[in-house]
């Protein structure tokens, strides 16, 4: 799906981006979130309840054939992805909540994801294996740069601030790279699916969209503040797509793999596009709601 060089480059870019995200935080931001564990727990529950359920529901509604549907189910059962942190950052929502929840869901995924995939996937899911190494890599790619970034900011506001700026630029590069490499590689896939299997196409779009919407409402139902609702939306709606691809690579081969890969490939495009739009909306709303004080004090 993606070349080794691109993969390595993407990994480095993601690490730099996460270093920047870490540098945007302070130990106090982390401890503030730890002091209100309710929101961490609710986010983890939301991640592994709604996303799999929405994926399963979409399979039923659009009558997606099992060989393809398993891809959607696997995506739905994945933990949060690192790009959710970046989008949360640009949306000016609660970055530290997003980062901690990504860590928690990734760790929880080791046990919960295989169970969920088996539960929702039925017969096709029997051969599914979880690439634990990839989960460990995901975790390392998350935890190490984040804490290094936090440490840098603590040591020097200048180094931290610079890292944050550069990291966010790398984040934009990551997004652009994902789009730029995706489109030429999968263009025919996109067009063919749209014409031949509109249900599959719709499922791949609706998973992130419904995921974000339901997550937002989930937070709202529990009385979360606006910033936390937005964080939930981005955190839960954006899953670790590459991990889904790795799961499929480990579990399937040949034609089965190609079919299972279809939805994760589409998802990784649509999630970037929809999340970018949602982030822009959130960011605008944040800036609008910010306290206005007169031009001069």
């Amino acid at each position, binding site marked *: 799906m993606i070349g080794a060089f691109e993969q390595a480059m993407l990994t480095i870019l993601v690490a730099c981006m996460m270093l920047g995200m870490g540098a*945007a935080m*302070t130990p*106090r931001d982390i401890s*503030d979130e730890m002091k209100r564990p309710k929101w961490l727990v609710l986010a983890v529950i939301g991640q592994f309840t709604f996303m799999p359920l929405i994926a399963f529901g979409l399979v039923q509604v659009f009558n997606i054939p099992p060989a393809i549907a398993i891809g959607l189910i696997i995506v739905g059962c994945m933990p949060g992805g690192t790009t959710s942190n970046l989008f949360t950052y640009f949306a000016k929502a609660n970055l530290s909540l997003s980062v901690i929840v990504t860590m928690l869901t990734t760790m929880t995924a080791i046990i919960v994801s295989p169970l969920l995939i088996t539960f929702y996937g039925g017969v096709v899911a029997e051969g599914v294996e979880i690439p634990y190494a990839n989960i460990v890599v995901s975790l390392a790619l998350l935890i190490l740069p984040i804490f290094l970034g936090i440490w840098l*900011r603590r040591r020097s*506001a*200048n180094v*931290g*601030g*610079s890292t*944050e*700026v*550069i990291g966010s630029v790398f984040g934009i590069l990551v997004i652009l790279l994902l789009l730029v490499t995706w489109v030429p590689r999968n263009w025919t896939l996109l067009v063919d699916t749209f014409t031949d299997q509109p249900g599959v196409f719709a499922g791949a779009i609706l998973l992130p969209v419904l995921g974000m919407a339901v997550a937002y409402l989930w937070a709202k139902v529990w009385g979360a503040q606006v910033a936390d609702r937005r964080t939930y939306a981005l955190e839960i709606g954006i899953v670790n797509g590459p991990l889904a691809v790795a799961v499929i690579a480990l579990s399937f081969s040949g034609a089965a793999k190609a079919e299972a890969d279809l939805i994760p490939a589409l998802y990784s495009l649509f999630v970037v596009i929809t999340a970018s739009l949602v982030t822009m909306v959130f960011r605008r709303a944040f800036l609008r709601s*910010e*306290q*206005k*004080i*007169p*031009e*001069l*004090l």
Partner: protein
Amino acid sequence: MPEHTDPRPWLAHYPPEVPPDIAPAAHGSLCDELIAAARNHHDQRAFTMVMPNGMNGHLTFGDVDRLSDAFAVYLRETLGLTQGDRVAIQMPNCLAYPIAAFGALKAGCVVVNTNPLYTGPEMRRQFGDAGVAAIVGIDIMADKIRDVVATSDDIPVILARITDFFPGYVAGIIRSIQKVWTRNLPRIDYPYVRFTAALEQGLHRRSEAASYVSELTADSLACLQYTGGTTGVSKGAMLTHGNLMANSAQMMAFSKTAILPGQETILTALPMYHVFAFVVNLVGFYGMGAHNILIPNPRPLSNLKRAFENYPITWVSGVNTLFHGLVNEEWFVAHPPEHLKASISGGMALHASTASQWEQVTGSPVVEGYGLTEASPGVTFNPIGGGEVRMGTVGVPLPSTVVRPTREDGRSAALGEPGELWVRGPQVMAGYWQRPEESAQVLVDGWLRTGDVGTMDADGYVRIVDRSKDVIIVSGFNVFPNEVEEALSSHPGVDEVAVVGVDAGERGERVRAVVVRSDLTLTASDLRAHAATELTGYKVPSEFVFADDLPKSPIGKILRKDVRTQFVDAQVQPLLTSEVTR
């Protein structure tokens, strides 16, 4: 009603260590005090400028001393200025500010503090009146100076950058952001000198600065601080070295136990071109060896978050808007500053609700004072550290200061009776620059007639009843109706106009223009756009009311008082939504 028998009943309310009078200045000029502070705190940080994401640059007291010497030499030797020449300083809070201001003072020049957001016409008027011989500006706002440069004969312009004196890589990143993201570096197509290049030129001869300083006395002019005063025509209050030394000494003496030399950190979010921050933060706290945390732009208030996080702020000087805004920021309430001792409020009335919220959130008092540009500016303050803080009052007169509410016939008002506040003390200005008539109107027999109306309790606490009748106070900034009316009248579709203030709650007041149109197609948006070309943002009316006629006196003078009451509930003309949220 009885009159005051004791001429200074408030002395009984001074905290134990506060003297009734300040000692005569130990130094010849303010420069000697600045030099002494730098000697005493040489290697300590004097100024740190903090960007919204925490990036920062700093100067030690030694740096400020050395570089301001260099700037003084540049002004005198390279530009050929002489003692008494006026130098305009027009910058937001940044590290170049103290160097430029202290450098100009050390050169014996007169600082003309200027709001960097001024429009071309406003700048031309102020610079023309002051007769400035040099302008120190900032690159991000340098485009507006072009107007002035184009119409005046070769006034040299020196431009600093926000990033001057920042570590190199940080400056590089901020410049890149300015170029690519915020795009706020205008093209500069007129000759100018980089601030740092000017310092280079002066640095090798910096020892010569001492000779300029030795020529200065307490009577030498230090600042022309522009103000509308009571009449509304903008004029320069002449503040001498003695005035500034006295007022900073008065305010420091009044907080003696609470301000420890070399140990305080003060948040400077108010602009230093305003007399309040200029004298309290830049002169007063610097003299005490305090660390000034400079905020270039406090809007939005989240720009202050990193500053509060990273520095042990012990003092905040602010206006009601700032305090009220901060206690409504979630991050501030979640982690209020731990080291804060007290906060000082001036510029506009501090609302009781804001004060109590602030105290609740920070666990430290905010005390209100009263002042005006013509008094450099401090006149009264609520006592900190021992005395009684009386809410709803602006406290008691500072040491060596007498305040007297006065009847129209010049006799003292009775206890509790409102009267114009007359002030006497070493902080009272020398007069208005080149305006002997206006000076004579406000400086009479050693008293400054403030035009503000207040009362005094039996024990000397002052309450402000009404600040100068027509002045509109928009979040601490004075807006003079005359100036706004003039700007609006210049529109061909305007027949008559009266500008008044309407209550805007925590923000103070809004500017409302009541307009009689000759061109009935004229809209509020047109008028607003027109005003914005002539006036700085806070002066531009936020509300327009159209009327058929304005109330006038028998001799045809528009009666603002009647305009205010008559049009208080009038229908405000709609503006485009984009304009309303400004």
